[in-house]
Structure formats: C-alpha cells, structure tokens
C-alpha cells in the first residue's frame, strides 16, 4: 500500500515536472500562431434554433451565415459582406447586388433566389419564426401576416429576383436606413435543402458563412464549428470554434481562469474587479448600444404633466448610480442613444442632468406631489439595488415619502405594462438592432414602435420621424436629431444608463475584437500556442 502510494506520488511529481518543462518550452514560442490556425472555445448560452430567421444566437449565426451587409465593429458603418451593395434612388425600391462566386457549405452556389426563399419563409406568420418582424417593412408583409384567417400567398410581393446576383426589394414606405436591416443574419440566404426537411436543417444548418457546423446541434451540448475553406469572403484565422453552453456566466468565468474555455462574454458584474486584476489586458468593455430607462405611465393623472416627468428625471443622480451601484458596468444616459450610435446627441436632454434644486422647484410649479409612488420592474437580481437607490434619490430630492416596489416575473410584468396597469414608472431595456439613434427612437417612442409601451404619441415628432425615414443616410441624421430634441420636451421616458458589458479571454488568444456588437468578428481571432 505504502509503496504504491509512493510510486503514485513519484509519478505525479514527474508528470508535474514534465508539464512545467512543456510549459517552459511553449512559453518561448508564445507569439507563434498555431499550426492550421488552431481552435478556441467561447462560453455561450444554448442557441435553441439555428435557422437564421428563427434564431437570436448572434455569434453562432454570424459565423454560419453571411447576410448581405455587415456592421463595422469599430466605426458602426455598414459595409459589403455577402452583397457588394444595397442602394436606392428613392429610399423605397432597393437594389441588392450580390458578390459573385459565393457557395454554401455543401458546395452549391448562392443565388438571389436563395435569399428570396429565406426571407419569404421568415416573413410568413404561420411559420412563427422569432425574427418575423424583421421583414415588416417589405411590401407584402401584411398579406403573409393577416390579422384574421390564413395567408393566401407565401411570397413577399416586394421581393423580386432580377437575375442570379441581383434582388430588388420594395418597401411599403421609404426607409433610408434599410441597409442596416440587411446586416441582420435573418437576411442570409438558405439553400434548397433547408426547405426539404426544416427540422433536420435547424440542427445541422448549411450556410454561406466563414464556418460550417460539425455534426448536429444537440440541446445544451457544445456546438462545434469548422472553417469553411471555400468561403467567399476574407478567410477566418482559426480552424475551429466551439461554443460551450453555460447557464451561469460566473461558472464560465471560473472555467476561463482554469483554462478550460477561451472567451467569456459578458463577465458577470461581481467578477469584473477580479477579471481586470487577474487577466491584465485580456479584458475589454463593449460599446453595444442599449438603453436602460423608465417609462412613465402617461395614462395616470400624476404623470400627465411633462414638468412632473422632467422633475423626476432631474432628481436622479446618474453618475452616482453607475459608479457606486453598477460599479462602472454602465455609463449615465443623458440622451436616448449612447455615444457609440450614429446621430447621438449627448446634450439633447436638458432634464437628464442632475439638478436636485431645479427638480424640486419644477415639481412645486406643477402643483407638487400627492399620494404614494410605485416603481415597477421585472425580477432581476441586478436591478434590485438600483431600484432602492433610485427610490432614495426621489425621496431625498423630491420629498416623496411613500415609495414602494412592484417587482414581478417578466411575463406578468410585460403584461401589466402592455395593459397599462402599472400605476408608476416601469423599468425597461432596449438593445438597438444597429448603432444609430433611429434604432432607439423608432421602436421606443414612435407611433409604430414595438416597444412604445406607454403609447407616447406626438404628431409633430412622428411627422419628423417619417420625414427622416424618407431621406438618405446622410440627410436624415439632422432630422432624427431634431425629433429627439422634441422628444425631451415631452419626456415620455426617463433614460437611466447605457449598460457596458465586458469580455475576457485566455492567454491562448492574441486579440479578441470587442466593440459595437459586443464580441466582434470572431473570424479575426488568432490562436497562439
């Protein structure tokens, strides 16, 4: 017994020395790129679906598929991807010219028809794809999504295949920012095989992207991607990328420290300090455009006066919230869009600046405050302290004594907000689909907005939005900005902060792009040995 134990110990010691020696050897060649590009792993959550129109799994989708355009992760501008260009004279009829010679992972050439097929399938309401709404602007969408009965057609009348490499898209009304929409993976093409057996395709998709899937997707199992060597665009550096699903990013971070996973995004807030200290230069905060805000219940008498809404906003000390409560996992929001979004104006909202005296005076002017206040929010451990702090600031700065909370699970909360049953301001979040101020204004506060939950309606504002939509990219910006300035005279929502999310990576990776899309283009990640 003793001898064998000793032997084991000796063997372990030997193994340890060998490992050290190996480590020493590999250290010398640390800067060398791995042979064949090497492979790395990314902590993720289960993608659920891998058909582009039915998936929110951004990272996996952008590697398996290539939509017409891509957003530059640093500048925020759209640039050619699977298409050479997306152009229009009148902002309503758009011509999409595809790159030539691109192929699917099964070797078939990509044609314009493959794009039209994919869009038709995603836009058909009966298919119940989660990204169905992405096609709402295209002419013929309403026929595919009738409010009563079943659709009589299964093709979008606004999508015409001109030739092998050209598509013509007609929108139901002019929209100068349409090129941004085509950066969504839901606009990627699908091969014929996708329609023969959609269920099998969902598990083993065949795309036109830089990486192909290896094997089939299985629920909560690692998803392996391998470089597609006949990819039409810039070839990827790493030979393979594995997405490892985690339910808890804290666990993923521990796994990163132990060297079992290479990229973690986002690092949970309570580990940020540890990450910045331990990982020295291997962390970066993304500038992914988002807004955490309160919506005012415009249907309540208490909030019908814009001066009351402005007083609330002026009573919030956003700097203190982001530095002490969020510990710098957010920046104060002083307008609707963060600095990373095109057309943002950080000084547009005068009432988003902390001014406790002014707030109190304005509230008095509007007739003071009567009754109690209820703050509504959805269950999320991260928002708890934030709510407490905001309540304290309102108590101190506005003298509102009775402040209580209604914190509910998401489904109940969403229903209460949609049904206008929230008697007080409600916490909300919006992640913009592209880095532009219009990607906040349109959904959150305009007449057509899917997240305009308090039904804010201002004819002048909506007219400005419509005018801007009809102009091209350069000309529209000033009009969108004018609309935002008008918005803050009404103050239907109260911006609080723009969230910052941090990525961390292992020593094996030379550089990980982190920017506007959170984790950026993973094809540029270099693996070293």
């Amino acid at each position, binding site marked *: 017994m003793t001898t064998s134990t000793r032997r084991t110990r000796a063997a372990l010691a030997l193994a340890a020395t060998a490992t050290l020696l190996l480590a020493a050897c590999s250290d010398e060649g640390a800067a060398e790129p791995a042979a064949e590009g090497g492979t790395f792993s990314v902590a993720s959550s289960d993608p659920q*679906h891998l058909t582009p129109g039915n998936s929110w799994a951004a990272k996996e989708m952008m590697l398996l598929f290539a939509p017409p355009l891509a957003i530059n992760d640093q500048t925020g501008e759209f640039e050619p991807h699977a298409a050479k260009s997306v152009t229009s004279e009148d902002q309503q009829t758009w011509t999409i010219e595809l790159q030539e010679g691109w192929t699917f992972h099964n070797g078939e050439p990509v044609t314009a028809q493959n794009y039209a097929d994919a869009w038709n399938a995603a836009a058909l309401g009966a298919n119940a794809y989660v990204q169905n709404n992405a096609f709402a602007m295209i002419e013929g969408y309403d026929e595919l999504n009738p409010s009563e009965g079943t659709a009589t057609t299964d093709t979008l009348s606004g999508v015409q295949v001109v030739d092998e490499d050209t598509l013509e898209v007609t929108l139901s009304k002019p929209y100068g920012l349409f090129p941004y929409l085509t950066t969504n993976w839901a606009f990627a093409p699908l091969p014929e095989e996708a329609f023969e057996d959609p269920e099998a395709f969902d598990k083993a998709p065949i795309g036109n992207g830089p990486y192909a899937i290896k094997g089939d997707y*299985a629920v909560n199992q*690692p998803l392996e991607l391998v470089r597609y060597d006949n990819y039409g665009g810039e070839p990827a550096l790493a030979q393979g990328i594995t997405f490892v699903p985690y*339910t*808890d990013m804290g666990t993923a971070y521990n796994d990163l420290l*132990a060297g*079992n996973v290479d990229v973690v995004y986002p690092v949970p807030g309570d580990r940020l300090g540890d990450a910045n200290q331990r990982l020295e230069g291997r962390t970066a905060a993304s500038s992914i455009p988002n807004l955490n805000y309160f919506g005012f219940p415009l249907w309540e008498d208490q909030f019908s006066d814009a001066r009351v809404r402005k007083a609330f906003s002026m009573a919030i000390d956003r700097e203190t919230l982001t530095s002490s409560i969020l510990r710098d996992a957010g920046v104060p929001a002083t307008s609707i869009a963060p600095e990373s979004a095109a057309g943002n104006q950080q000084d547009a909202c005068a009432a988003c600046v902390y001014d406790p005296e002014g707030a109190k005076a304005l509230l008095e002017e509007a007739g003071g405050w009567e009754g109690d206040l209820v703050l509504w929010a959805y269950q999320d451990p991260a928002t708890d302290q934030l709510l407490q702090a905001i309540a304290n600031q309102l108590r101190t700065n506005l003298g509102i004594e009775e402040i209580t909370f209604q914190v509910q699970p998401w489904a109940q909360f969403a229903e209460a907000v949609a049904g206008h049953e929230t008697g007080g301001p409600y916490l909300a979040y919006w992640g913009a689909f592209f880095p532009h101020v219009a990607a906040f204004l349109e959904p959150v506060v305009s007449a057509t907005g899917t997240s305009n939950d308090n039904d804010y309606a201002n004819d002048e504002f909506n007219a400005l939005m419509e005018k801007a939509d009809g102009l091209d990219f350069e000309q529209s910006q000033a009009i969108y900005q004018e609309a935002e300035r008008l918005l803050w005279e009404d103050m239907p929502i109260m911006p609080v902060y723009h969230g910052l999310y941090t990525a961390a990576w292992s020593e094996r990776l030379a550089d990980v792009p982190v920017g506007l899309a959170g984790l950026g283009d993973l094809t540029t990640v270099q693996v070293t040995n």
Partner: protein
Amino acid sequence: MIQYALRRLLQMVPVLLGATILIFALVFALPGDPIQAMAGGQRTIPEPVAAALRERYNLNDPLWLQYLKYMGGLLQGDFGQDFSGRAVSDIIASSWPTTVRLAITAWLIEIVVGIPLGIWAGLRQGRLPDALVAIVTTLVFAVPIFVLGYTAQIVLGVNLGWFPVAGTSQGWPTSYLLPATILGLLGLATTARLTRTSLIENLQADYVRTAVAKGIPRRRIIRHHVLRNSLVPVVTYLGIDLGFLLGGAVIIEGIFNLPGLGYEIFQAIQQQNGPVVVGISTLLVAIFIIVNLVVDLLYGLLDPRTRHV
C-alpha cells in the same frame, strides 16, 4: 411478491394522473403570457407570430382541453414541443444521462463513505470518533450547498486544479467527482448519523444480549445481526434520497454547468416554458415512485418480517 409489485405499479396510475393535473394547472394557470415570457425581457414577439404560436400550442383552448390534448400525446409517448419548437423528448434525452451519472455517483459516495462513518462512530459511542463525526456532519448541515459548491469549485478547481472546474467534457467519473461529492454531502451526513443511531439502538436490543449470553463472538454478532438490522432505516432513507438526487440537482448542476434535468427544469421555469416543466416533472414523479417500489421490495431481503408474499 409479483402481485404486490403489480398492485403498486397500478397505484402509480392515479398518482401520476393527480401529479400531472396539479403540475399542469400550476404551470399553465400562471398569470402572464408564456409566449411573451419566451422573449425574455428584451425582444417583443410580433403579434402574428404570437397568434400562430398560441394556435400551435393550444393556448387558446380552455385549460381542461389543453390538459386532455397533452395527456393524449403523452400516452402515445409524445412529450410535445416546448414553446420554441424543440421536442421535449429531445431535451429529456440529452439531459437525463448527465443527471443519472451525477445522482448515482453522489449516491455511491453517500453509501461508501456514509455507512462506514456511521458504523465507526456508533461502535465508539461517546469517544473521539463519535464526536468527530458529529462535528463534521453538523458543519455539513449548517453550510448552504451553494457556498460549498462555489468554494470547492474555486479552491479545488481553479486554484489547485485537482478537479475540472465545470462541464462534462472529461467524462465520467472525472467531471462528476467534485459536483457529486458536494451533492452527496448532505445525504452522506444524514446516512452517517442514521447508521450510528440505529446501530447504537440495536446494540442494546434483547437479541444482542441473548447472543452475547450464548457466547457468540462480538465481531460475528455485529456483522451478522446488528448491522443487518440497523440498515433497515438507512436503506429507506437511501431509497428516498436516490429519488431526490435523480430529481435533478438544480443548484449543483447550475454551478458546475452540468446539462442535466435540474438545469433544464430551472431554465424552463424561468422562461415559463410549460411543456418542458410538465414533461420533466411527470418523468421525475414516475422515477420517484419506481425507486420507492424497489426500496420497498429490498426491505424483504434485509428483514424477512416485512417480506411481501
């Protein structure tokens, strides 16, 4: 005995029926639209899509009709689809091997360590080993399992590197040892204490005194009489505990990123994904009943008086 087993299996039918009705009602009668819950707080599902989904999952029907449709499918072995369109049977198929491996490993650790520990303490009642076992088991009871889990992960996994930190990539048993130990600790402590108490009780029983009077060696008395009788309550406990362990260890599976049933049911509850919750819960109820039946049958082997004829 076969008759008894059959009768018990028949009893499963009303229990399962009752359990499914209860779970189904609780899950589907929750306020809030499950279709919107699916979107998870960031994206809104457009109305035409939501309508198509409601139609697909019979959400427009009254609750009793929804239940009948669900049970109709279940009787044909169809667990249905979850709200994102994945087959629930796929989810169960991919997650149960992990849970079974974790549960059995934890259970074996409970038995292999817990029973000898209890015997060691019981035979040395009031002396140092007894006190040691009492202190250690009290500690285990007192510290919450997630504290133990995270601490073990950081100290033994990240800092010392003795065990894999998370995931199942290194297979059984390597990937399962640490989570199974943490998971089994509570049951281990209970097993040890139960064995100790039961052993002490039996040592004072009349039949032991008789055996001693007859001149049978102490070693033989303990091995053949006392141990066997002392194990009856321990086996009951271990049986029920196996049921619990198989029920999915939500916290441990979460901390160690093991994609088992507990992990799935936790996610499903958060997303209000009814079909997954009902499917997995029903399965767990069935497992629990079967495990209990096996334990009841095992009694007979240990104690002939309880044998079912």
